[in-house]
C-alpha cells in the first residue's frame, strides 16, 4: 500500500517536472550550468613579443646541468657556468674554464653576461665595476637606466647625465626597496616571479643605445609556474639596438 502511494507521488512529481514549460526551463538551467563550467576554460595566452624591429629570444638554455644544492648527488655540484650574449648576431658564448675567461671576458665581444645561480644575475659589459665580468676590459662608458613601463612605450633613451648618474650594476633578485632587479623571489614557494614591464635602457660599449626586457627564466615562458621543478634556466627576453646611434628607441 505504502509503496503504491509513494510511487504515485513520484509519478506526479515527474509529470510536474516534465511539463513542457518546466522542461524548457530545466534544460536551460542545466545547459547554463554546464556552459559556465566549460567556458571558464580560457587559457591565458602568452603575448607575442615580435614587433618587427626588436629581437625576441625564446627559451635560450642557460647552464641546465649545474646545481649548487647539497643532496643533489647526480648533478654536477659546481657554480653555474657564465654565458655571454652578443646583441648583434645573437651569439651565446660559454665561459667554462680559465681559457674561456681569458679569451672573452675583457673584450668588447659581448654585451650581456648571465651569471650566478641559474644564470639569473645579468650584467651589461662594464670595465669600471669590480663585480662585473668585463671589469678592466674595454667597455668603459656603458650604463643602465631602469624604466617601469611598457616595452613599446619606452621610445627614447634618456640624457647622458642620467646614464652617468645611474648606479645599476647587477640585475638580479629585486630584494630591496631600491633594487633594480628583474625578478621577485617567493620565499614561500621558492619560485622566481619576473617583474613585468620593467625595461632596461642601455648605453652600449660602442655608444649605441638599446632597450632590454628580461621576460622569463622558466621553459616555455609560462605566465605562472605551478611546478617547483619547472625546467630552468631557459631565458626568454627581447631587445632593440638603435643602429643609427640616435636615442630613438621607438619600436612600433
Amino acid at each position: 500500500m505504502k509503496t503504491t502511494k509513494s510511487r504515485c507521488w513520484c509519478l506526479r512529481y515527474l509529470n510536474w517536472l516534465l511539463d513542457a514549460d518546466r522542461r524548457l526551463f530545466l534544460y536551460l538551467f542545466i545547459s547554463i550550468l554546464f556552459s559556465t563550467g566549460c567556458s571558464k576554460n580560457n587559457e591565458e595566452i602568452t603575448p607575442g613579443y615580435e614587433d618587427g624591429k626588436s629581437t625576441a629570444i625564446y627559451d635560450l638554455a642557460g647552464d641546465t646541468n649545474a646545481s649548487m644544492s647539497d643532496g643533489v648527488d647526480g648533478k654536477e655540484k659546481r657554480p653555474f657556468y657564465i654565458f655571454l650574449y652578443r646583441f648583434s648576431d645573437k651569439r651565446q658564448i660559454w665561459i667554462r674554464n680559465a681559457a674561456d675567461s681569458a679569451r672573452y671576458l675583457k673584450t668588447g665581444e659581448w654585451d650581456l653576461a648571465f651569471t650566478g645561480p641559474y644564470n639569473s644575475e645579468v650584467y651589461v659589459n662594464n670595465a669600471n665595476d669590480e663585480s662585473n665580468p668585463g671589469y678592466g676590459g674595454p667597455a668603459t662608458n656603458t650604463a643602465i637606466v631602469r624604466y617601469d613601463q611598457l616595452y613599446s612605450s619606452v621610445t627614447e633613451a634618456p640624457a647622458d647625465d642620467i646614464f652617468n648618474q645611474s648606479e645599476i650594476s647587477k640585475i638580479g633578485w629585486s630584494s630591496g626597496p631600491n633594487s633594480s632587479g628583474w625578478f621577485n623571489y617567493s620565499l614561500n614557494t621558492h619560485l622566481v616571479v619576473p617583474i613585468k614591464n620593467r625595461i632596461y635602457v642601455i648605453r652600449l660599449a660602442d655608444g649605441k643605445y638599446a632597450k632590454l626586457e628580461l621576460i622569463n627564466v622558466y621553459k616555455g615562458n609560462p605566465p605562472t609556474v605551478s611546478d617547483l621543478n619547472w625546467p630552468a634556466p631557459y631565458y626568454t627576453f627581447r631587445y632593440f639596438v638603435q643602429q643609427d646611434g640616435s636615442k630613438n628607441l621607438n619600436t612600433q
Partner: protein
Amino acid sequence: MYKFYLLMLYLFPLTVFCQTKGSLQGVIYDEEGRAIAAATITLNPDNHFLEVEEDGSFQIADLYAGVYTLAVSHMGYKNYEQSIEITAGQIAQIKIKLQKDTHTLNEVSVNDKLVQSDNLISATNSAMPVTVISRKQIELMGSRRLDEILKEQTGIAIVNNIAGGNRSVGVQLQGFSSEYVMILIDGQPMVGRNGGSFDLSRISVTNIERIEIIKGAASCLFGSEAMGGAINIITRHGALQPQGVASIRYGSLKIVDATLEGETPFAANRGEANLSANFYHTDGFNVNNRYQTSGTTVPPSDNYTSQGRVRYRLAKSTSAGISGRYGLRKSVMTRGYGNDIYKDHMDEADLNASAYLNSTYKNGLQSLSRFYFTHYNWDSKIEWNNGTLGEQNNFLQSVFRLEQQFAYRIAALSLTGGIGGLLETMNDRSLGDIPSMKNGFVYTQGEWQLTDQLQLLGGGRYDYHANYGGRFNPNLGVTYIPAAFLTFKAAIGSGFKTPDFRQRFQVFTNPLVGYTVLGADIARTQLLAMRDAGQLSELRNYTFNKLQQDGLQAEQSNTFNLTATISPSSKWQVELSAFYHHIKNQINSFQVATATDGQMIYSYLNLPKVNNKGLEASVSYKPLPGLDVSLGYQYLLSKDQSVKDSIRTGNWPYYNLRNPATGETFRSKTADYWGLENRSRHMANLRIFYNYKPWDVGLTFRVNYRGKYPFEDANGNYYIDRYDTFVNGFFLFNASVEKKIFKKHLALQITAENIADYTDYLMPGQLGRVVLAGITYRFFK
C-alpha cells in the same frame, strides 16, 4: 597501565563463561502506529548494527544474558535509547515508538551519538559544529578516496601546496590550512605530513563507517594540531551475521578500485572480526598540456590498504579489541617539458595499530583503556632523464600513545574524561637528528540538560609538552530551543599547535637565491657563532632579541560560533551560522641577519594575528520520501593582520602596489589587501540525492562551486592584491546512479565526476572527467 589490565582480569567473575544466552525480538513503529522500515538498531556494549525489516520488526538471537543498551535511529525521527535485560533461555520482547523530529533531516546532527566500543569521546562532544558523513552517503556518491568525499562538503577545499612540492595536497577547513587540521582514525591521531599537508587521498574510504568533521578549534578534545578543526574517520565495526562484500570499479584514467571485505561473529557471538583489503590504481592526469608535454600533474599511483579489527567479550560488560590498518602507496610521476623530463618517485607507508579494553561497572561508570601505535615512512626522489638526481628525502615518524577514558552519567549530566600521554619520534634526512617529543594530557567534557530548552556543553583539556610547558584549552557551548522549530547554538573554544620540527631545528640553505633558514631552537647559537667568526655583516637586533627573549611560542586560536537552525516543517531545514577564528602567534619566517657574503638569514618568529571569519548557510529540502535536496554556502574572509600593519607603517615592500600590466607603482592602502592565498571568498554546493526504494535505485547529482582564489603574489609586495595571480572560479558537476538487484545482493553503479571536464593548470591536483562503472556483491543470509 599493565597493572591495570591485570587487575581487570582478576575482577572478571568466572561465572560469565557459562553458556547463558537469550534473544531479543521487537518492532519499531511511529506515533500513528505504523511500522518504520529501515531504522538502524545499535545494541551496546557489543555495538551490533542491524537494519529493521520492511514490517518494522527485528530479531537478535544468541545474546549473552545481561543488560544492554538499545539505540534506534532513523532519519526524520528522534533517536531512541533504552536499556533492556536479556535473561538466559528467554526471548525478550520490546516495542519501540519513535517520535518525529524535524531536526534530524540533515545529516548534521548533534543528537547523533553512536557509542563506539573503542572510543568514549565522540566528535559530538565538541561544542563546535560537527558534520557527519554517513557510510550510506559515501556509497551512494561512489567515492573511492577520502579527499573526494571531503571536497564536496561545505567550507572544505582540497588545496595543492605548490611550495611543498608535487605531492603536498591537504584539506582546508573554514580557511585553516591543512597543518591546523588534525586527522584521526577512531579517535587516534594519524601522522605523516608533507610540507604540513596531510594528503587525504592516501586513505581509502572502504571500511569507513562514518566521518566526523569538527569545524573550529578542537584542541579541548584532541590537543595540539587540532587548532582549526579535526576530521575523525570511524572504521567499520562487526555485525551479527557473517557477511562479505566484493566490489570492483573501473573506468577513466585506468582507475581500478577493488575491495574485499568480510566480517563474522565467532565463539558463539562472543567475538567478532572484520577484515578488509583494498587495491586502488590510477594513471594520474595532466592539467597542464600547454606547457607540460608529457607525464601528469596528478600523480599516478598504486595503493594497497588492509584493515582488520577483532573484538571479544571477556565478560558481560567487558570487552577487549585490537585493530590495525596498513596502507602502502607507490607512485612514480613523470613530468616532461619537451626534452626536460623528470620522474618523481615516492613510496609511503603507514601503519596504525591499537588495542583497547572497555568495561562498564554496575554504577554506570564506563572505563576504556587504550594503546595506540602509528608509524609513517616516506621515501622520495626526483630523477631527471639525463640521469641526474634532484631532491631526495626520507622521513620517518612514529607515535606511541596510552590513554585512559571514563564516561559517567548522573541524571541530566553526562561526563567524559581522560588522561594519557604520547611519545613521538621522527627522523628526517633533511633535518638531521631530531629529539623525541613527550606530551601528557588530561581532559574532561560534560553535557548538562538543564531544561527541555537549555543544554550546556563544556570542558577543557590540559596538555603538558616537554618543550612548551602546559596549556589549557577550554570550550563551552550553549544550546537553546525557544520553540520546536528553532534552535540556537553558541560555542567558544580554543586551540593550539606547537611548533613543528622544521620550525625548530631546520638548517636550510637555498643557493638559488642565496639565503639560509635556521630553526628557532638552533638559530640563536648558530647566529652567535657566526657573529663571533665574523661571518655576519648585520644582525637585526629587533628580530634577534625577540627570538632570544620569547623563543618560539605555540600558535593559538580562539573560535566563536553562532548557529541558528530553523525547521518550519518536516520538509525544510535552514541552518545559518557565523564563525570567527582568531589566530595568535602564527609562525612565519623573518630575516634575522645578513651574512658577509650577502646571504640573508631567516628564522621563525610568531606573527601577531590572523583572522578567519565567515558565514555558513545550509538549506535542506525533502519534498518526497527518499528525495533530499540540499544547498550549502560559505563566505570566508581570511586575513593576516600583520600585512595591514605593514601597509600602514609603510614597510618595504608592502607599501608598493604595482600594476604589472603597465609597470606603474602606487602606494598601498590597507583596502588593497585581498586576503590569504588559496582561500576562496565564496564556496557553494548543491546536492540532490534520490533513493527510490521500490526499485532499489539511488541517484545523486552534485554541483560544487569554488569562487576565485589567489594563487601567488605576482607583483612582489608580499601580499595578495587585485593585480596578483588568481585561480578562476569554477563549477564541478558530479553524478551517480546505483541499482540493486537480486534482493540487494548485487549493486551496479555508474559514477561520473567533473562531467564538464573543467581543469586549470593552476590546480595541478584536479582530475578531468572521470566515469567509472562498478559492481558490488554482498554476501549475507
